[in-house]
């Protein structure tokens, strides 16, 4: 596995699995332990569309974070240069 696209905050995520239901590329799997964050079963297949994060009922509280991997990060010219 090369990338780590999705992080769950175990303190906040209640394991409702909305993200598992909605991920269009099917990279997530429910945790066998009820109430725990899903498993990122296929991280290298993430398409970074943000469905999981957009639809997470606890998104505002920081339950889930999607991290853009380095090769996809935008090349920025900073204004203070």
């Amino acid at each position, binding site marked *: 596995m090369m990338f780590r696209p999705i992080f769950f905050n175990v303190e906040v995520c209640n394991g409702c699995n909305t993200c598992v239901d909605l991920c269009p*590329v099917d990279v997530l799997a429910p945790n066998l332990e009820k109430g725990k964050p899903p498993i990122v079963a296929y991280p290298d*297949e993430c398409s970074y569309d943000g469905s999981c*994060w957009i639809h997470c009922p606890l998104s505002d509280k920081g339950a889930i974070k999607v991290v*853009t991997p380095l090769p*996809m990060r*935008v090349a920025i*010219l900073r*204004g203070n240069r």
Partner: protein
Amino acid sequence: MNSDSEVIPIETDVLVIGGGLAGCMAGIKASEYGVKVTIAEKANTLTSGCAGTGIDHTWAYIPPIHEKMGWCIEDLMEDHIQGIAHGFINKELLYLVASENYERVLDLEKFGVNFRFDDSKVPGKFRIVPQFHSVPSSFNFDGRPIKVKLTKEAERRGVNIINRVMITDLLSTDGHVSGALGVGTRDGKFYSFKSKAVVLCTGRVNRLSRIVSGVWGNHRLPVYETGDGRTMALRAGVPIINTEFFSPALFMIGNYEISFGVPRAEVQPAGSITGPNGEIIVPRTYFYDWENLGKEKWTSEVRRKWMAQRRADRPPYPEMYKQGKGPFYLDLTGGTEEEIKYAEWSVSNEGDGFRFLDYLKNQEKFDFRKDKIELLPNSREMAGTAASGLAVNKDLETELKGLFAAGDEVGGLPWQASSGAFTMGWHAGEMAAKQTREQKGFLPVGEEKLASLRELCADMLSSKEGLHWGEVELAVQNIVDYYAGDVRAEEMLKRGIERLDDIKGNISFRAENTHELVRCLEVRSVIDNAVMVMRTSLERKESREVPFKFYRADFPEQDDENWLSFLALKLEEGAFKFSKIPIK
């Protein structure tokens, strides 16, 4: 899953395959005719398709605005035919899209999608921006939740949505479509549909070539769209057109910018392109002067010439990079606060844009007011890609009676985009539903296709020596990029076909579980689509300039006399047959 997996039988009058924008619209419209409607979706209609996480624009002929400009629907048609399609377009279908999308926008409003804004100076309180045509003709709207709204509307109308089923085969009986077969992407069960009509809406083929950033999912369009509709239609004997035109997946190298909704900075206000020292390469754009609407001085013809000149003056980035010029930046730093806010709002509604904006702000601490985003030379999509797809008549029906198509599944319409999905989906849904009312019962379907699908899946799941889907996909993408990339020629294409046939004939897949099985079936679609690309590339004996970007080294000139035609490919008794469809 195993070879004795359960079969779920489903009977439905209309079966819609693919629940993106087109599929949802088809299902919604079909439901008005008192027939049973089912949408079979590979992912989940709440988040799937090109607009899965939103879309912020759709082009249309907008009577309350365009009439005031003295711009008629024929003007839109001419702008699109000349400026976008270079004459290579199905004009009947273009008319359908152009003339009906305003009504579809009004329907989408009824389904809860917001198109009106209190601060707007545009009649109707719309937000309208320039995109493809010589006057502003694209709605900007709050489209992020569009798939949620469409799903709810479909459910409210009693449409049966079955998520997580990948359809692999069409069934036909005596020249009429009679159903379809699929595999549950999570439950591993087989789904056997009997239906009186089918609307195919599976979108495009987005995994034909290597994603250069090396991040598999880093595509502007959904990576799970693998041309499944085209391959099942091909196997059902339906002609597919113009598959030689496709967009290589080059436009996301380490960057996101095109999913930003500002390809070449045309759509949003204040967007300019600047060079390494801040020099202006493409001057900034402005809002249209809505306060002077109705006082336009230019005739449509003058506008069209101006538009053509603007396109001709567009910097030739790939050549400029070869000359060592660059880097180039998307630059909104000259924008006013109002313009920056507008751009951010727009981005946040466009596909992937909401998360992109969050990433820019929180992961990169990016600020449009002072920072610039580097553009990459090959970050462009070819409008010609949308010329490829199923051949349909004016009612969107294919040669197989009862089989309709809509949206990106349909060939012949460069840059029909969401406008094509909304209008064609609606129209195909209506036609399919009406047709089913004439048909009494379901046609009998044979068991052979289900048996062979069962065998195929069982082989993949039990294979010891088979290859992982990702390995096969990379090999196929390498072949497409090498033999059907920027330069194509007869001997190279023949070699490419040999190599694809070799993979198709001799490679077996290995799937550890249902998830991997579905990926294997997807790669099988990609291979079939790659064969179509290669075969039609060999057959088209000319070159065709951007937006088709089709270059045959052995036929370097564009040959309108012989080749201003759609190239149709079909399977007849196992052999490929080609024919030209003249453009009227």
